[in-house]
């Protein structure tokens, strides 16, 4: 990922926050954390009133591509009407909205067909905005900017989970290689945390494509493998960039216990929540205490007061950066 002048310009413009479904309706802490961290970083965020399901790239795209494009295009027109780029906090929403935006911008016939549908509600897709994902956006803003905003560098070992649709298909996403990317790890490390490498790191969480609802037990086997690999690497928590991956890891741990009897107790954080902790917010202020999987040892780290969390002894460079 290269940073250019255009990125710098974009970072100063206000964004419309596209919430999707799982963040506001199952993990509201992610919505709140996003609003908090973006405000602290000086990025103006507006509500995207009346937005719907993106709709889900797995089920909807599988069912009927035209309906998928039509509903997605409506969400895009809401942001177009505000004259802002659209910010997603979910890989699934990013897949649907970025793909739709790109398809409609490049295929005049498809655009005409979709606009015919949109005409029934008095809207029109114009193709005037960009679709951004919070991780990709913050990376373009630069990890250094994030680092400079951190008031409580985190002494945590993190298992980073990119999630498939953040980077793939690479031909469309243009965020570099999907085999060994580093941009998300760099953002995680900007909080002071350490991104720990683990086996088959780029593997899928299991949830996508409608598979979770089609064959839950099968998908949990994929999730269990990822959790096991992260546990073996000794992570303190998982950090993801997608509420659906988040649900699969968090709710999934309870389901894995039920199906296979394995207990992990690995806390699951969305990147906005990790950054929120590094900006000095408590787990409660970020909704982390509402996760299904709770780990008291993890939460305790944040009760001990900020001094120990600063990790000054262990990482003098970070302490220096802070001042």
């Amino acid at each position, binding site marked *: 990922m290269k940073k250019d002048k255009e990125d710098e310009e974009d970072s100063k413009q206000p964004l419309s926050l596209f*919430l999707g*479904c799982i963040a*506001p*309706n*199952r993990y*509201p*802490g992610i*919505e*709140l954390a996003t609003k908090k961290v973006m405000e602290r970083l000086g990025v103006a965020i507006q*509500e*995207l*009133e*009346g*937005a*719907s*399901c993106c*709709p*889900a*790239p*797995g*089920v*909807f795209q*599988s*069912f*009927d*591509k*035209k*309906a998928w494009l*039509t*509903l997605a295009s*409506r969400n895009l027109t809401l942001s177009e009407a505000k004259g802002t780029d659209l910010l997603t906090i979910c890989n699934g929403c990013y897949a649907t909205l970025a793909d739709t935006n790109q398809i409609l911008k490049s295929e005049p016939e498809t655009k005409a067909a979709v606009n015919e*549908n*949109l005409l*029934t*509600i008095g*809207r029109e897709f114009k193709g005037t905005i960009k679709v951004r994902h919070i991780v990709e956006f913050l990376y373009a803003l630069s990890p250094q900017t994030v680092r400079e905003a951190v008031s409580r560098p985190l002494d945590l070992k993190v298992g980073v989970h990119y999630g*498939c*649709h953040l980077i*793939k*298909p*690479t031909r469309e996403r243009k965020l570099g290689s*999907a*085999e060994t990317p580093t941009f998300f790890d760099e953002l995680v490390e900007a909080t002071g945390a350490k991104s720990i490498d683990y086996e088959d790191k*780029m593997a*899928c969480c*299991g*949830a*996508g*494509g*409608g*598979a979770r*609802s*089609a*064959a839950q037990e*099968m*998908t949990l*086997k*994929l999730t269990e*493998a990822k959790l096991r690999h992260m546990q073996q690497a000794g992570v303190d928590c998982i950090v993801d960039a997608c509420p659906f991956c988040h649900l699969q890891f968090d709710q999934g741990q309870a389901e894995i216990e039920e199906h296979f009897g394995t207990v992990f107790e690995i806390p699951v954080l969305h990147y906005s929540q990790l950054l929120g902790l590094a900006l000095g917010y408590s787990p409660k202020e970020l909704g982390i205490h*509402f996760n299904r999987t709770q780990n008291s040892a993890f939460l305790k780290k944040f009760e001990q007061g900020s001094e120990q969390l600063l990790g000054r002894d262990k990482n003098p460079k970070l302490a220096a950066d802070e001042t």
Partner: protein
Amino acid sequence: MKQKNKEYEKMNHCIRDISMKHPIKTSELDPTFFEEIKEEEPGTEKLLMCLNCKGCSSSCPVTGVEPAYNIKKLLRMTVLGMRDQVLNSKELWYCTTCYRCQERCPEGVETVGTILKLRSVAVKNGIMLPAHRKIAEYVMRTGHGVPINEKNRIKRKELGLGELPETVHTHPEALSEVRTLLKACEFDRLVGFKEFEGTGAKGLKTPSVT
């Protein structure tokens, strides 16, 4: 609950596995199947470039835990014209769309794109899982694939957020738009959703959020 399971079984009845324990009879192949897929979804013609290297199936995370799922086999069956077997296979719905196979294919075959197309042909033929139909129904009823519930209303309030998000959940006119669009796409008919029947595109009632 029992009733629900029964219904589920009935729905799943048509969906079979693709173990293929018997030889393929050429008389049962439908050469128009692949033609149809190719015509409707540009890009899927690249299936003909497949070298049979199995890079896709050996990259597949699902195959790692569920060996019955083999994407190369499904795609090969598609080219051969095994319409019924492909469209009715439950494995068609196992793909998590992680794109690992597509990224690694040396011939640039659009593996995932083809799976998605095959699924939509299955749905057009009335073959869909009840769990997926339910998600589609949630979107038609509420505008969200995963709508709010009581527990999360409380969580939102405790966090100091609005009890409902600023989405279709708080904007009834927006929900009407969503429903109008889905009706314009005949999505309700596709998934057998009856609530829109007899209503004009503009006259859709806005349901209350649950």
